[in-house]
């Protein structure tokens, strides 16, 4: 006697197996972490810069969730980075909340709350309207901060913040070694969380929404709820990146809400390649290193170069650096 098999069970098994196979860790995935640790030993005097690169990676990763996977084009992602940055900054300056790790959680929760509230309203819209609405949200937060500059410090910012040692033990040194490892640890946790989200059935549904939203509606997928959920998650992660930014720099100004900040993170992600997790790593590292080098030579040429890179990327390399690498070695696994 065989057990009666539910209709469609075979297809369901195949889908489950597909998801599990994709989720399995592959060897090359160790590479970015090895490189980060190698950088720690190779460039001991550039660790302050190194932390900024890792923060940029985390910020780009959060954008990848909504832009690369769910296909939400936003021009206001800096809003959540800024919320996180100010949660920690104001907490330290006004409330004396200087414990760093709980600060990260507070920043994540605040940014996620704002992400949920704004996403609930904004994600009904698409195209130009959505671009404008996300942009307006970020600028309004900035203007609100400027309006109450008695609290936020305005464009002069909140300078000279101090934070307790990480876990109460590891104090901050002049070269930022502790910070680098602290940010790297935070990034690793966030990354494996994002990886899990992306390879879950939920992540699969997001890709479906990106590829064909009508079909997702037609098969009964709760599109709006899914979009709001991923927007909230991405906002929380961007908030953590912002909080780390404040903690490592020990200051924060309203420029974190700038359109430039939103545009920059998008450029990083596009350079690296969207919808492929490691694009955020490749893009942010390449962008930050180039910026560090060229903007010292001439900020004007750097800006021209970024513009040219974007134009060339759109015309010839729509899938970013990782896409180009895949083209060069087509033997590699298909994503």
């Amino acid at each position: 006697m065989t057990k009666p098999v539910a209709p469609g069970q075979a297809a369901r098994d195949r889908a489950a197996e597909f998801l599990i196979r994709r989720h399995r860790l592959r060897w090359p995935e160790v590479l970015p972490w090895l490189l980060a640790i190698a950088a720690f030993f190779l460039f001991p005097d550039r660790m302050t810069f190194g932390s900024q690169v890792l923060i940029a990676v985390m910020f780009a990763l959060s954008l990848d969730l909504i832009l690369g996977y769910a296909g939400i084009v936003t021009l206001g992602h800096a809003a959540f980075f800024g919320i996180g940055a100010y949660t920690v900054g104001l907490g330290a300056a006004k409330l004396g909340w200087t414990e760093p790790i709980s600060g990260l959680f507070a920043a994540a929760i605040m940014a996620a709350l704002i992400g949920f509230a704004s996403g609930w309203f904004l994600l009904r819209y698409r195209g130009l309207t959505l671009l404008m609405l996300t942009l307006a949200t970020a600028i309004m937060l900035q203007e609100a901060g400027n309006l109450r500059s008695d609290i936020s410090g305005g464009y002069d910012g909140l300078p000279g913040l101090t934070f307790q040692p990480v876990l109460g033990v590891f104090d901050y040194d002049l070269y930022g070694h502790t910070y680098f490892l602290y940010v790297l640890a935070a990034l690793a946790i966030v990354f494996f969380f994002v990886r899990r989200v992306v390879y879950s059935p939920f992540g699969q549904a997001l890709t479906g929404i990106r590829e064909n939203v009508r079909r997702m509606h037609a098969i009964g997928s709760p599109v709006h709820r899914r979009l709001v959920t991923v927007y909230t998650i991405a906002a929380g992660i961007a908030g953590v990146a912002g909080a780390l930014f404040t903690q490592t720099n020990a200051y924060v100004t309203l420029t974190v809400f700038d359109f430039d900040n939103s545009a920059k993170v998008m450029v990083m992600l596009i350079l690296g390649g969207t919808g492929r997790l490691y694009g955020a790593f490749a893009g942010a590292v390449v962008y930050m290193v180039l910026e560090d080098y060229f903007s010292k030579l001439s900020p004007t040429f750097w800006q021209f170069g970024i513009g040219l890179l974007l134009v060339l990327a759109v015309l010839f390399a729509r899938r970013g650096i990782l896409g180009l690498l895949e083209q060069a070695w087509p033997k590699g696994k298909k994503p």
Partner: protein
Amino acid sequence: MQKIAQIAVSILFDGLAYAMFLFITSVGLSVTMGLMNFVNLAHGAFAMTGGYFVVTLTRSLGFGFVPSLIIASVAVGLISVPFERYLYRRLYKATDLEQVLLTIGLAFMAIATFTYFYGPIPKSVPLPDWLQGDINLGFRAFPSYRAFLIVLGAVLISVLWYGFERTNIGAKIRAAVDNRRMAESVGINVDLLFTLTFALGSALAALGGGLAIQLFGLTPSFAVIYLVLFLIVVAVGGLGSLKGTLLAALVLGIFDTTGKYLLADAGGFFIYAVVLVVLLIKPAGFYGRE
């Protein structure tokens, strides 16, 4: 009471002048976006180019202000054609994201180029005597330059309205905005039409850029700072609608001026609050198609 009326008149006048600037600069963007659904973030860069042309023509080559405006508009209109033909055209069927990236890349390149040649310091422009000082309208005096803006805006609105509503080409543009495929299948050459409107829109943007120098001063960051305003006017007005663009420019111009008069600290807060409210209620703008 007298004082309140005075302030109200001032706000209305300045708001109107500001609205005219917004309309002139944004109307081309609205029509081209309505025609091709192309998100053109380099529109501000075309306006800035026009502004710098006016600076060079008046300061270095000794042209008058008004002739410079005309020359700059025509020049930028012509320059925009190869951009449309060889770059934009390749991305009409691409996603919003790719269009955003291409055009923002172009804007960055334009900003860098103009910073290299003109430096980051704000530029001003010499005005003829009749545009300086005040003009007396009987009951009170107004700044001549703003009065000039309002008159010019009114003239352009009439011309554009006539061209859009009463000429053959205008009818073709409206048809193509309404339903591109249908327009093509009755034999309208939409590609050519688009190149024409794109050039006209860029020329108007350049005119707006030239007019803006006196209002805000001209720096290379103009391309991005004011771009946001133009996009807002377009989004709030509704893509491809002349009426909508005008209404949006008026509402935003007057709201923003009121906010700056009465609550200077709030800065741009008002304008963005208006945008959020309008777009949440009418996602396609005042006169856009849902």
